[in-house]
Every structure is written in C-alpha cells, then in structure tokens.
C-alpha cells in the first residue's frame, strides 16, 4: 500500500469505528421499553432535587495541572523526531536534545518549588 492508501485506510477506520458501538445502541433503541416519567428523567442525586447550576467553576488546581501538562505534551512531540533520528545524530544534535530535555526538567522543578504540584 502506498502512503495515500495507508491514510485512506486510517480514515475509513476512523469513520467505521463509531459505527461498531452505535450498532448495538441502535438495536437496543429498537427493542427497549419506553416509559419515561418526570421523576425518572430528572437528574440523579440520591433522591433529593439538585440545587443550583451543575456547570460550576472548577478548582484552579485542575487548571494548573492542565497548563503543566500542555507544556510537557507539546515539548514531547518535539522529542519524538529526536528519538527517531537518534542513531544518526552527531554530537551537536545529541547535545541539543539534551539541552531541550534539561529545559523541560528545569520547568518541572520550578513548578515543584512554587508548590504548583501540591494538591491544595
């Protein structure tokens, strides 16, 4: 298979993948009983009515973890080419990769010392 065909395969697979779980759900939709009432389709909360809006603001700690993750995730994508080319790398390329990882680690320790990693 050539490159275009490879990605056509992935594309077709991505289109088909949601169909597999959708199939039993649709079949169940055909057979299932339908007896809705107000109480049944209300929000579940141990028998009492929910108070206030559910979609509230969330803790800032989740946001901080999200930010730290984003830094690492983006930088890791850059490390993949470095790892692939590792065997052909000369000293310069190798040290450049090291400096890159060092900067990453530096950021992690900065966040650590700033107590951004503590669950508050």
């Amino acid at each position, binding site marked *: *298979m050539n490159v275009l*065909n*490879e990605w*056509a*395969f*992935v594309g*077709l*697979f991505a289109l*088909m*993948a*949601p169909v*597999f*779980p959708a199939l*039993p*759900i649709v*079949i*169940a*939709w055909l*057979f*299932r*009983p339908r*007896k*809705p009432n107000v109480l*049944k*389709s*209300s*929000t*579940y*909360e141990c028998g009492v009515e*929910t108070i206030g809006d*559910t*979609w509230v603001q*969330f*803790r800032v*700690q989740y946001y901080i*973890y*999200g930010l*730290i993750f984003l830094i690492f*995730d983006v930088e*890791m*994508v850059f*490390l*993949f080419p470095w*790892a*692939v080319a*590792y*065997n*052909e*790398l000369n000293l310069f390329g*190798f040290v450049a*990769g*090291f400096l890159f*990882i060092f900067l*990453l*680690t530096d950021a*992690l320790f900065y966040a*650590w010392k700033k107590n951004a*990693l*503590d*669950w508050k």
Partner: protein
Amino acid sequence: MTMDELCTGLCKLMVESGADAGLAQFMSLLVGVLLVSGVPLLTVIILIWVERKVAARIQDRIGPNRVGPIGLMQTFADLLKLLGKEDITPTSADRALYNAAPLVSFASVVLIWVVVPFTPFHFGVDLEIGALYFVAVASLGTLAIMTAGWASNNKYALLGAFRVVALLVSYEVPLVFALLVPVMLAGSMSMLDIVNAQSGMWFVVLSPLAFAIFYISSQAETGRAPFDLIEAESELVAGFNIEYSGMKFGMFFAAEFLHVFTNGILMALLFFGGWMGPLYYESPLIAFAWLGLKGTIIYLTTLWLRNTVPRLRIDQIMAFNWKFLVPLSIANLILLSAALKIMQELGIAPRDMLSASFVDVLPTTIVMLLINLVMVAYLLGILRKRGQEARRESGANQGALAQAASGAGD
C-alpha cells in the same frame, strides 16, 4: 497471504469482473478495515467473561458459571439483558454530547488497533508514526469521558470528569517518556520496526524501568485500581457514567475492558518482542499465538493488580505522578540515551538495532541493565527513607493522640 496482498488481490478481482476502479479500491479497503477491527470486537466478548471470572476468583467467589460451559455464554446473556433495558436520557442533559460520548469512548480504543501488527505480515497499516498515532488516539478516550461527565449535567458526573482531566492527562506524560525509550532504541516510530528491532534482545531487558513506568501509567490511563477514583463507587456513586443506562452504559464498560487488553498487547509489542518466540517464522499462526500469549499474560497481571490493591486519594496520585514518575522517566531517558550514544561512539553498541543480532546487543544490554538496576536501588533507598519518615510522623501523631485521650480520661 499478507493483508496487503489480500486487499490488492481483491481490488484486482473486482476490477476484472467489471467493477468501477474507485469503488473496487474502496470495497477492498473496507474489507481490510472489517478484518482488522474484527479482532478487537471479537476479543471484547471473551474479555468481559475473563474479567468477571478472574475478579470473582481473586475475591473467593465462583463468578459466572450458569450460562453455558463454565459461564462462557454469560456475555451474550448480558447483551440480551441490556437490549431490554430502558435507556434514560436526563431532561437536563446535553443530548448530542451525551449520546456521542459512549461512541467516542469505544471508537478511540478500536482505533488503536489500526497500528497493531498481529504478525510480521498481517496488520492494518504500518504507519511511519505508529507510536505517535497511538498516543494521539488513546487520549481521545479522555475527551470522551470528559464529554460524558459534562453533558450529563449531574454534579457527581462532573466531579468524576474533573478528576479524569487531572489524572489521565497527568499520567500521559510519563507514558510518553517511557514510550520514547523503545522509539529511541529502534530509531523508528513504526510498530513493525520496533518489534523487528527486538530480534536481538527484548527492550524490557534493555530498560525494565521504562516498561515499569509504561505499565503503571497505562494502568492509570485505563482508570483501573489503584487509580480508579474516576469511578469511585463509594464517594461519587459511579463517577462520569452515573446518568448512563442500558446499552450506552455497556459501551463504556466494553471500551474499558478492551482498553486494558489493548494496552497488554501494546506492551507485548513495545517491550516483549511482540511475536518473537520459538518458530514464529514458521507460520503466521504461531507468531500470532506468541503475541496473544504475551499480551494475555500482561493483561492478567493488570487484572490481578486491579483486584488486590486499594484505591489511592487524588493528592497521593498526583504527587506520585509529578514528583516520582515524571522525574524518573526523564532521568531514565537521559541516562539511557547518554550511555547508548557513548557506547555507539566507542563502537560497542550497534547503530542499527534492526539488523543487530543477540551477540551485537549483548554489551549494550549489560550496560543498560546495570544503569537501570542502579537507578532502582537508588529509588528504593529514597522510598525507604520517606517511608521511615512517614512512619515516625504518624507514630508521633498517635503518641500525641493517646496522650490527649489519657489526659481527657483523668
């Protein structure tokens, strides 16, 4: 006959019998897709039974044993039961997202199988960026769980979804750092190349630490104990899937069971030489059996872990990830890459693992294994010190409490 030959042969056959060329190509691709996706879809039926049986045995129960021989038909009975269940959508839920979440959750797991080679010649496609593709697709599952929690418009579900963002997203960092080690050793992101590069020595021997980090992170990625606070039955009732019922609920569980097995197969491919084993070149069936055997053994250990360890608190989980696993995985990558480069420059390590034999890789293996063992010894020292400190602290606390209690008694 390889998958590639099958598809092109099928395409040729259809064109010869007078079909449109574009349509023939599409149909042959479709057959390929159905063949590849058939493997995970068929395994998931058995996995549900295995999961229940193993969990039952570990907890000293019998497990499913009524439907069919040793309960093998239990999954079909469950399926029939789920078909008859009423499917409730809460009135306040976001309908479109609520219905899409279980589909995305299951699809993200099935999509990983695109890059899973079953034998040296039977695979969906051998993408040049296979490892990166796996990381990208697996994180779609996180999105599905977040969507489910948000769209349910339920406070329990939303709390569960928040935890997912913190947990799954955090454990992706050590997972990818551990994944970089086999990619670096093989010098390729293609799954086929990574497996073939292990013909000299399995990567788990070269870096047991990378495997351990990958194993722990993938246990967290699937939301299994000890990292199962996404579901946390005792506090969040069921977490993100609390409002789901009927077949949609079932799809979340099928996706989770399949994800665990998929991770087992991936670990077999990345670290345990995939289909490498005695006589694997004789027949694709033997190769496939080796891969299945290795994947199943790893999968069973994750089930064992899941059913024996207690749940951790979220602060413990996050601290374990960011203050232990992430620095460890970075240190592992740095030390191994430095050692390998020095050995390559000295000429005792092969520059190309693909064509390296066992003897070629032997010096590399010994050095890298030693580095890993030294790291493990050092880590155990740190953990021991920390444990002693924690015990002393809790001992002091208990002493103070006892003193206070006896003081109150007077």
